[in-house]
C-alpha cells in the first residue's frame, strides 16, 4: 500500500500540478509575497502594507464590503435571472414562483434584496468615512469624484432593480422617480424652460413610453443587469487602481502618550520618518481580515434573509395608486423635499447640487491637515458642514419614511394611519413677493458677505472664487431647514411666487 504522502508528493511535483500552481504553499516570506504577486485577484494589493492599514477602525471595512456586496449581488442576481422574466405578463408571477415553488428561491430573493439595501447604506457610510479621514485630499481628489459617480451608479442600480418585481411598491416608486425626470429643466416635459414634449423627454428615455409599462420594465431590466453593472465595474476598477497608485492613505499614529498631549501625526512623522518604513505582509495579515469581514457580513445577511422575507405587494395596477406612494428609502428624502420645493427644484436641481457639491469637496478644501487619520479639531468647518449635510440627508429620509402617512401628512411613527384626516394644507399663505425678495436678498447677500468679515482668515485662505462656491453650497444647505421651519411653524408656503413663470421658492 503506497503511503499517502508519497502520492501527495507525486502530485505536487507532476507537470500538470506545476503548470497550474507556480509556487509551493509553505509559509515562507517568499511564498507570502508570491501569494499576492502571482494571483490575478489578489495582486491588486501591495505585497506589504503598513500596520496602520490593518486597523479595522480606520476604514471599518466599508469600501471593501461594498465591493463584496456587489459581488454577492451579482451572484445572487444571476441565479435569480434563471427564473425571472421581465415581461408584464410574467414578472410578478415569477416572483411568486420564486417565493413558493423554487428551491432556495425565497433565500435567493431575500438575500439579493437585503444585500442591495445594505450596499446602498454602506457606500454612503464609506463616503463619510473617507471624508472624515481626509482621504480625498491631494493627490486623491479624482478618486473621490469617481467614488461619487459610483454612489450614483449604486443608487441607479438599486432603483432599476426596484421596478423588476412589478408589484404596487415597484410601479409607484418608479412613477415617483421618473416623474422627477419629467420635471427636469429643459429636458423634462414638465420642467421650466422645457423644449420637449412627453413623447421625447428625459422621462420617455427612461421608460421608453409615456406610461410605466412593458418598455420601462425591459429597459430597467437591461440597465439593472447589464449596463449599470458594467459601468460599475469600469469605475470601480479605476477606483481601486487609484487607491493603489496614490498609496493607501492610512498613516501610522503616534503612540498613546504623544496623542494625549495633542501631537498630530504629521508632526510626529516628521520626527520619526522610520515609522513609515515599517511594513508587514499583506498575506496573511490584510487578506485574512478582509476575508473575515466578508464572512461576517455574509453570515449577517444570511440570518436576515432566513428570518425576514423581502416585501412583495399586490400586482402592479396603474389604476390604483396607494396612498401614500413612497420612493425607495434612499430617495424618500428627496420626496420629502417635494413638500417644500417645486418638483424641478426638489427632484432635479437639489440632487444635482448635492452630487456636484460632493464632487467639488476635494477642490474646495485647501486644508492639508488630517490625511490618513480621523481629525476633527483641525478641520472644524469642513467636518461641521459635511456632518450637517449628511445628517440632514438622513433626517429627511427618516421623516419621509417613518413620519409621512396618507396625503403625505405628518403621522408619528406610532400613530395609525387615518385616511380621513383633513389636510393640513389649509391655512398656508405666501410671503408677499416684495418681502420675499427682500428676505432672499438678505439671506443670500448677508450670507455671502458676513462670513468674509467675520472669518477673515477663512476668506484669505480660500480666495474669492472658492469662497463664493463654498458659500453658495452652504447657503443652499441651510435654506432647506429654513423652508421647513417657515412652513411648519409660520405657515408660509412660498417666499416668492411667480405663477406666470411657474417659479416658486
Amino acid at each position, binding site marked *: 500500500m503506497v503511503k499517502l504522502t508519497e502520492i501527495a508528493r507525486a502530485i505536487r511535483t507532476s507537470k500538470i500540478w506545476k503548470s497550474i500552481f507556480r509556487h509551493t504553499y509553505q509559509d515562507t516570506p517568499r511564498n507570502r509575497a508570491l501569494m499576492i504577486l502571482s494571483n490575478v485577484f489578489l495582486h491588486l494589493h501591495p505585497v506589504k502594507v503598513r500596520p496602520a492599514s490593518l486597523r479595522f477602525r480606520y476604514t471599518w471595512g466599508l469600501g471593501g464590503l461594498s465591493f463584496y456586496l456587489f459581488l454577492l449581488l451579482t451572484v445572487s442576481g444571476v441565479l435569480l435571472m434563471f427564473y425571472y422574466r421581465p415581461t408584464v*405578463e410574467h414578472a410578478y*408571477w415569477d416572483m*411568486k*414562483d420564486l*417565493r*413558493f*415553488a423554487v*428551491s*432556495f428561491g425565497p*433565500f435567493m430573493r431575500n438575500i439579493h434584496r437585503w444585500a442591495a439595501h445594505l450596499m446602498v447604506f454602506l457606500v454612503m457610510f464609506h463616503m463619510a468615512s473617507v471624508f472624515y479621514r481626509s482621504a480625498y485630499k491631494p493627490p486623491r481628489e479624482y478618486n473621490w469624484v469617481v467614488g461619487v459617480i459610483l454612489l450614483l451608479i449604486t443608487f441607479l442600480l438599486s432603483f432599476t432593480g426596484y421596478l423588476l418585481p412589478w*408589484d*404596487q411598491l415597484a410601479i409607484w416608486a418608479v412613477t415617483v422617480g421618473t416623474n422627477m425626470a419629467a420635471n427636469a429643466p429643459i429636458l423634462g416635459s414638465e420642467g421650466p424652460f422645457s423644449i420637449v414634449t412627453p413623447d421625447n423627454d428625459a422621462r420617455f428615455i427612461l421608460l421608453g413610453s409615456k406610461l410605466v409599462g412593458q418598455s420601462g420594465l425591459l429597459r430597467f431590466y437591461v440597465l439593472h443587469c447589464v449596463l449599470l453593472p458594467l459601468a460599475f465595474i469600469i469605475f470601480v476598477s479605476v477606483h481601486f487602481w487609484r487607491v493603489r497608485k496614490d498609496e493607501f492613505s492610512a498613516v501610522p499614529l503616534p503612540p498613546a502618550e504623544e496623542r494625549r498631549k495633542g501631537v498630530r501625526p504629521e508632526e510626529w512623522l516628521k520626527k520619526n520618518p522610520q515609522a513609515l518604513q515599517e511594513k508587514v505582509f499583506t498575506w496573511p495579515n490584510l487578506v*485574512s*481580515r478582509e*476575508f*473575515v469581514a466578508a*464572512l*461576517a457580513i*455574509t*453570515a449577517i445577511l*444570511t*440570518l436576515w434573509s*432566513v428570518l425576514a422575507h423581502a*416585501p*412583495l*405587494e*399586490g*400586482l402592479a*395596477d396603474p389604476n*390604483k395608486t*396607494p396612498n401614500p406612494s413612497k420612493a425607495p428609502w434612499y430617495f424618500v428624502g428627496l420626496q420629502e423635499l417635494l413638500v417644500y420645493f417645486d418638483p424641478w427644484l426638489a427632484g432635479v436641481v437639489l440632487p444635482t447640487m448635492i452630487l456636484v457639491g460632493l464632487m467639488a469637496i476635494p477642490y474646495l478644501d485647501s486644508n492639508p491637515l488630517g490625511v490618513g487619520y480621523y481629525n476633527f479639531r483641525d478641520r472644524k468647518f469642513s467636518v461641521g458642514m459635511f456632518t450637517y449635510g449628511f445628517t440632514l440627508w438622513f433626517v429627511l429620509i427618516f421623516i419621509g419614511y417613518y413620519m409621512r402617512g396618507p396625503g403625505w401628512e405628518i403621522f408619528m411613527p406610532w400613530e395609525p394611519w387615518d*385616511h*380621513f384626516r*383633513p389636510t393640513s394644507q389649509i391655512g398656508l399663505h405666501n410671503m408677499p413677493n416684495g418681502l420675499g425678495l427682500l428676505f432672499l436678498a438678505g439671506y443670500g447677500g448677508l450670507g455671502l458677505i458676513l462670513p468674509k468679515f467675520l472669518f477673515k482668515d477663512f476668506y484669505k485662505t480660500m480666495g474669492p472664487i472658492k469662497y463664493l462656491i463654498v458659500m453658495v453650497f452652504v447657503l443652499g444647505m441651510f435654506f432647506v431647514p429654513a423652508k421647513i421651519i417657515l412652513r411648519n411653524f409660520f405657515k408660509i408656503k412660498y417666499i416668492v411666487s411667480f405663477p406666470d413663470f411657474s417659479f416658486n421658492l
Partner: protein
Amino acid sequence: MKRSVWNWLFLLSSFGLGGLFLFSVWQETFPEWKGYQAEYYQRLARVTGDPSKAEAPLKIQQIYLPEFHRTDRCITCHAGVDNPKMKDQPQPFRTHPDLGNPEFLAKHPFNEMGCTVCHQGQGPATTKRHAHGPVAHWEEPLLAKELTVGTCTTCHQNIPNLKGAERLVQAQALFQQKGCIGCHTLHGKGMLVGPELAETWRKGVDQFDFRYVRGEETTDRWVKEHFKDPQAVVPGYPALGIPESAMPRYELNDEEVQLLTALVLSFASEEKEDGRPIPARFKVAAAAPAPGPVYASKLEHGKAVFQKFGCAACHGVEGRGGIRNKNMEMAEEVPPLIYIAKGFTREELKETIRKGRYPARSDPNGPAPPLWMPAWGGKISEEELDALAEYLLSLDPDQPTPAASLTQTRKE
C-alpha cells in the same frame, strides 16, 4: 496562541453561516406541504389497499393555466380532490363534493379550470397561511364555504336555472324584495344614492374603512358588518359635516347576511376585469331572453314596476315604510305608501312620481336628508306609471304584515 477578535469573529461567522446554511437546507428539505402530501399517500394506500402507493415521490403539484394567467398549487396539499375514493377522509385529503349534482364534477374539470377561479385564495402559494389567507397584499383570500356560490357568475349568466346556485337565486329574490336597486346602481342601472354594487368586491381591501369593523380586515368581513349595521361601519365624520351612512338597518338574520354577501360577490364576479380574465370559451351563455312578462292584472304589473325601480329601498317592503331619513321633517322617516289612497289623487300621485320632491329639513341648520324622491319622469313609461299608480292606490294599511322573510323567521 493569543486569540484576537478576528479569530473569534471568524469562528462565530463560520459556524453561524454553516449553521444557517444547514437550517436553510433543512427548511427546503422539509417544507410544510411535504407533510400533507406524505399523509395523503399514506391514506391513499390504506383506502386502496395498495401499500406501494405510499411510496410515491413528493413533488409540488400545480395546475398551470396560462389562458387564465393563473397557476394553482392547491393540489399539492389537496391531492385527493379528484379521487372519489377519498370521500370519507378529513380535509385536506377529501374528494371535492359534487353539490348533490352528479354532473357537477365532470362539468368543472380541475385540470382545465384550476381552483382559485371559484374558491379564490392565493394559487401560487405552497404554504397554508399564504394560500388560504388572509395575508397582506393578496386581495382574494380563500372564500368561506357559504360564499363560494358567489363566484358562479364568473362564467354562468343564467343563475335562476343553474343547479347548485339555489342560494344565489334566494339572494336575488331578497335583493328584489328589499329594493336595493332603488339606492344602488348595479352594472350601471339603478339609483345614485349608494355606490355601484359590482365595484364593491373589486375595490380591494385598502379602499375600505376598517376602523369600526371587528375581526380580520377582509372584504367579506366589511360587507357582512355593513349589512348588520351600516351606521356603525360608516358613521361619517360629524366634525366635518360628513353624515353617516343612509343605508337602512334591515335587521337581517345571519343566513340573510350570508346570502346577500354572496350576492355582492356574484355581482363583481360577473365582470372579471383584472389582469386575469376568464377565457371566453368557459363562459356559459345566458338563456334566451325571456319573452316580455305577461301580467295577470294591472295590479300585478304595478307590483312588478314597484320592484323594478326598487321603490322598497326607501318606502319599505310593500310600501310599509320604516326607512330612516335623517333630518327629514315628518318624524325623520321616508313616508310609507300604504296611506297614499287617503291623501293623493291619481294625477297628484303620478305628478309627484314624475317630478320628484326634495324633503324639507326638520332642523334647518342640520345637514340635508340623504334620501329624496327622484324624478322618474324620463325613466318610467306612462304605461308603467299607470300600473304603478293603480298598485299604490290599492295598498291597504289594514292588511296583515308581509309574509315571513324568505329564509328563517326574523330575529327581533
